[in-house]
């Protein structure tokens, strides 16, 4: 991508996703979308707004409230030459289609020794901090990271959202795509995007801020908490390097290790529950593979091992915050 032409207007996270999907739909007539209320309504948040109008009911399906069938039918479409983009109205409802994802879809390539591949994207609004309570706040990517055969993506900004969505759609494997709903319309992260077609390849993390004193690994909405905490650390004289994973599976260990070689300190931040979450996985891999670079005990800031409660003070209590991250960062830096 050499010197891309720049559009005149800034685009929000939601529009970036919407454009990515619509552009891929135009590019490849074998792409089909399925989900609840994605056609006539255009999706609960509007990510598929206008898609059915433009591409017809044969390509955009308003599905019955049947998550297992939505995934399973999409799997059938994919094993017969189509590519399916599946919306979970909220990513929380993915639990209702769980078996069809982890046992039917994720393993198809493996159990057919490569004969079949399932180019499916399962996408949906995700994440806490918005007062969504237990069932409209989940980040449940670790369930799927633990289920071999699924790629997992979670962008934090419009550029990545568009580029990763395109890469996910073009990927021959099933991808679970976490859209952070609190970012959909966040004004201060709007960006000017290249006019040209581009992708952000899966499996590549991004250093979003350079620093020498501590590496903070995160993704999704927590990127912004971490950046704010990094400013706090700066005030105390510590320069944090902030890594946005962007893709959880496959995990870009190299970028983290490279950073640790420099900083020798690690903090991982993730809004999902702590036990067996992605933060722990990053910690474990780094301890296994970069132990020699660690000069201080690494740490995680995650959601407590609780559901996400509804009322604001309760919700914030269990989630990572700028304060908690700053505090942990300082502790590690001062070790």
């Amino acid at each position, binding site marked *: 991508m050499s010197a891309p032409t720049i559009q005149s207007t800034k685009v929000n996270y939601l529009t970036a996703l919407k454009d990515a999907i619509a552009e891929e739909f135009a590019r490849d007539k074998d792409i089909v979308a399925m989900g609840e209320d994605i056609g006539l309504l255009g999706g609960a948040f509007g990510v598929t707004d206008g898609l059915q109008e433009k591409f017809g009911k044969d390509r955009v399906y308003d599905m019955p409230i049947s998550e297992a069938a939505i995934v399973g039918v999409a799997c059938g479409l994919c094993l017969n030459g189509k590519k399916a983009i599946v919306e979970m109205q909220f990513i929380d409802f993915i639990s209702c289609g769980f078996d069809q994802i982890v046992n039917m879809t994720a393993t198809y390539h493996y159990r057919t020794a490569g004969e079949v591949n399932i180019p499916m994207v399962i996408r949906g609004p995700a994440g806490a901090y918005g007062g969504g309570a*237990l069932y409209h706040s989940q980040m449940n990517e670790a369930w799927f990271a633990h289920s071999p055969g699924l790629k997992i993506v979670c962008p934090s900004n419009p550029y990545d959202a568009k580029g990763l969505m395109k890469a996910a759609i073009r990927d021959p494997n099933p991808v679970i795509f976490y859209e952070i709903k609190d970012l959909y319309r966040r004004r201060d992260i709007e960006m000017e995007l290249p006019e040209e077609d581009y992708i952000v390849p899966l499996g590549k993390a991004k250093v979003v801020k350079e620093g020498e004193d501590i590496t903070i690994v995160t993704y999704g909405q927590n990127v912004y908490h971490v950046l704010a905490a990094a400013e706090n650390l700066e005030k105390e004289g510590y320069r944090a390097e902030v890594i946005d994973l962007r893709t959880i599976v496959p995990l870009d260990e190299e970028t983290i290790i490279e950073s640790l070689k420099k900083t020798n300190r690690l903090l991982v931040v993730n809004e999902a529950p702590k036990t067996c979450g992605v933060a722990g996985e990053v910690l474990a891999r780094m301890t296994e593979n970069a132990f020699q670079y660690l000069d201080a005990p690494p740490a995680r800031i995650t959601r407590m091992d609780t559901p996400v409660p509804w*009322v604001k003070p*309760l919700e914030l209590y269990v989630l990572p915050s700028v304060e908690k991250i700053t505090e942990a960062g300082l502790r590690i830096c001062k070790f």
Partner: protein
Amino acid sequence: MATTAKADHQTGLNDEASKLPSAQLTKGDYEELLRQLYLARYFDVRLIKEKKRGRLRGTLYSSHNQEAILVGSLFGLQSEDWISPIHRDMPAFFLKDIRKDWNNDDRMGMTIQEVCAQVWGKATSPGRARDNWSHIGCQSKHIIHSTSMLAGTIPAAAGVVLADRLNGKNTIAMTFNGEGSTAQGVFHEAVNFAAVHKLPVVTIIENNQWAYGTPTNLEYPLEDFARRADGYGILGLIADGQDVVDVYDKVMQAVNHARSGKGPSIVECKTFRAYGHGDHDDDRAARYRPADEVEKGRERDPIAVMKKRMVEMGYMTADDAKNYAAEGKGASEVTDIDFPQQVVDYLSKGVEFAIKSPLPEAEEAAQWVFKEVE
């Protein structure tokens, strides 16, 4: 037309049931039913207003135009019976067991204070506002807490009445579901199980013609969702969801059927969703739903239908019927004057309590993941 009940669809209904349950209702019962319709409507309207004033968080799934289903279904239940309402059924939480005494806080239904405290997210609601608005409940009042996952409480409903049966109690469990939710796998698994064991589970389907932005013909191949009953050989009935007396009649037939050991049933109540899916959807709904469909769907306001019945039965004069003219008016058109004072007072009591109540302490958020082992 959607809101017009078709000829009864009955599978296996006992002939003896032909004497309609509503034949037993007194003038006082009719008056109470009407009052409850007002109460349910007022609850909705009041919350819409409160929300517009910025005093509330969360989404409001209006039950406007669908109140006859809640009122008529709950009216004939016994105190110990179980219910499981969902997002569009907020009034059910306090309408349960309210018949005898609105102001008895010990009855087997939630108090208006508790419900309002929940809406306002206060520590004085039974779940201390840990889950949002609609997912409340109260074990001691025999109200099952739903998750967001639609149809997800039907198995639990089967479970609670199975437990009661094992203990020699003859309760029934009534679950409320949108017609769209019947497509969930767990609906099938639970109804099938209840049918195998003839469990007293009455499944109310509120067919309001839309599941969010999806019309019924994309949810189910048949027009009458009561026909889902046929796949299990259980009783399936259709009620006019605008007519609280017809709802009462059909649901009571199902309840009696259940109570007498004949097993589960499905009662489809035909109605129409007055507004958007939730209050955030009002504007968009106007785009995806043809205006004439909406007009037609709202043309038989349950309050008006009930008044008409009462006038016909001589329980009310035509002049009296003009009082409290909430019927046919949108939330922004009505004022407190359109409702009986008792209704306004009742709810105000709840709202005031809620506003005065404290928020839960932040630290509570870490509590109650597990129950401590004694």
